[in-house]
């Protein structure tokens, strides 16, 4: 299901830290209303890609368009406007530990919208109901279980009714049942609210369950970007390695190996 106007367009993105290049020439499109899974092993560059998409890191070159806006050419006010339309749920939840769950969800509303406290209170409870955390608003994040933290983080990400939702490793550290519930929640949200959802994960099962399309990253390059079936039937050996959890052989010539051992 390719929607006409893309929510995310990444073109020839090159990014890294210092002299180390992590992403080489990544090009990616996510259609509006689509659930895109970005998959890849550790060190494939998926976290770096996410940080660049979120504007937490600046790319070395290439362009990123979110909701039609080139993120490299925004002034402060335009950036703020864009950020209001983007929700992010971080891997560890990243709830502010000094605030209650309710205050965390209220934070974007308090900071960005001029609303009466009662209105904010109602909106917070609505968002918490959406993620099945009704009645937990007065708890502190430290009192919640892993799955509840993720759902609370999702509620905060949804607070401003974003058009674009990023989800970093939704199932990391959760048991299969809870992580499957979270998957259902993501599907429900997309269907009910028509959001574009980008999920970064290395969990195959959850990826195949919720994805419209999957992008597989490896060593900072896009191996394949296509529908679930495209990816399943891909010829690429590396994609099949990832899908079938095969460990990869290390290709290193004897000379290179000796050189590495000698520390040259």
């Amino acid at each position, binding site marked *: 299901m390719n929607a006409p106007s893309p929510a995310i367009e990444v073109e020839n993105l090159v990014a890294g830290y210092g002299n180390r290049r992590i992403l080489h020439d990544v090009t990616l499109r996510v259609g509006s209303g689509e659930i895109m899974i970005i998959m890849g092993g550790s060190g494939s560059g998926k976290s770096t890609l996410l940080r660049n998409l*979120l*504007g*937490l890191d600046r790319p070395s070159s290439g362009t990123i368009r979110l909701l039609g806006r080139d993120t490299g050419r925004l002034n*402060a*006010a335009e*950036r*703020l406007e864009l*950020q*209001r339309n*983007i929700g*992010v749920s*971080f*891997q*560890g939840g*990243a*709830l*502010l*530990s*000094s605030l209650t769950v309710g205050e965390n969800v209220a*934070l*974007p509303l308090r*900071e*960005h919208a001029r609303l009466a406290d009662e209105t904010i209170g109602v909106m917070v409870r609505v968002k918490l109901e959406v993620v099945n955390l009704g009645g937990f608003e007065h708890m502190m994040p430290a009192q919640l279980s892993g799955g509840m933290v993720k759902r609370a983080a999702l509620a*905060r990400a949804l607070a401003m009714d974003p058009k674009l939702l990023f989800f970093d490793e939704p199932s990391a550290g959760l048991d299969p049942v809870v992580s499957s519930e979270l998957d259902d929640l993501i599907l429900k949200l997309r269907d009910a609210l028509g959001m574009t959802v980008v999920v970064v994960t290395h969990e195959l099962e959850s990826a195949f369950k919720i994805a419209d399309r999957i992008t597989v990253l490896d060593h900072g390059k896009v191996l394949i970007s296509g529908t679930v079936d495209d990816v399943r039937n891909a010829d690429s050996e590396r994609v099949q390695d990832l899908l079938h959890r095969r460990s990869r052989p290390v290709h290193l010539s004897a000379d290179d190996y000796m050189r590495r051992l000698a520390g040259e």
Partner: protein
Amino acid sequence: MQQLASGIGRAATAVVEEVGYYVALIVESTFWLFFGMARGQPVRLAAIVAQMREAGVAAVPIVFMLSFAIGVMLAIQGIHTLRQYGAETQVVLGIALSVTREFGPLITGVLVAGRSGSALAARIGSMQVNQEIDALRVMGINPVRYLASPAVIALVVMMPLLTLFADLTALFGGAVFCSLELGMSQFAFWDEALSLITVDDVAQGLVKSVVFGLIVAVVGIANGFGVSGGAEGVGRATTRAVVLSISYLVLADMLFTYFLNR
């Protein structure tokens, strides 16, 4: 030799870089205070008040105890020294001037560095580790505006107030000891002390304390934002914040004392 030179060079650039970061942090915190409203991101009064309570009001008991002890100590030393000239009653002058010009601001600064500088570094550091800072940024909440500005303002306001309180408490400590040791009445001590202290003496201490407040806040915050490497990193940053801010505090004290007494 070359290694030594390059080592010194690298250390020097690191110091310049760090001090530059402190300055940038002060500029940015101030920017948000004055222009945050126009940018739709005001520095919240509630956050400032919370920081003031945390860094200022909560520090009152410990400031009281330590400055009282300093006052008593100065009285003991002063009387001991002046007794050799038979001039014990002159001790009031010594206590009054050294408390207002030096000990009040310094002891308050060191205390607040230990309490609030470390707390700031630990709080912001653990937020950095837990991606809470990233979360703020993607929500369009500037972390400097949300976390740094209130703390900087709170410390710059509370430090002089605490110092004034420390001055009075230390004088009280001196008065108590003098009345016990020299049979001097409380009234006589205060009367003499207040006639000896000039506005300039108190002002000198307060000017320094404003700078101390700025140092403690900025060094704590900068070390917090600079944390990397998990819980261990937070611990390291906390220690570093306290040691560095006390060092900068003493250095700044020396410089200010020199220039203010020219």
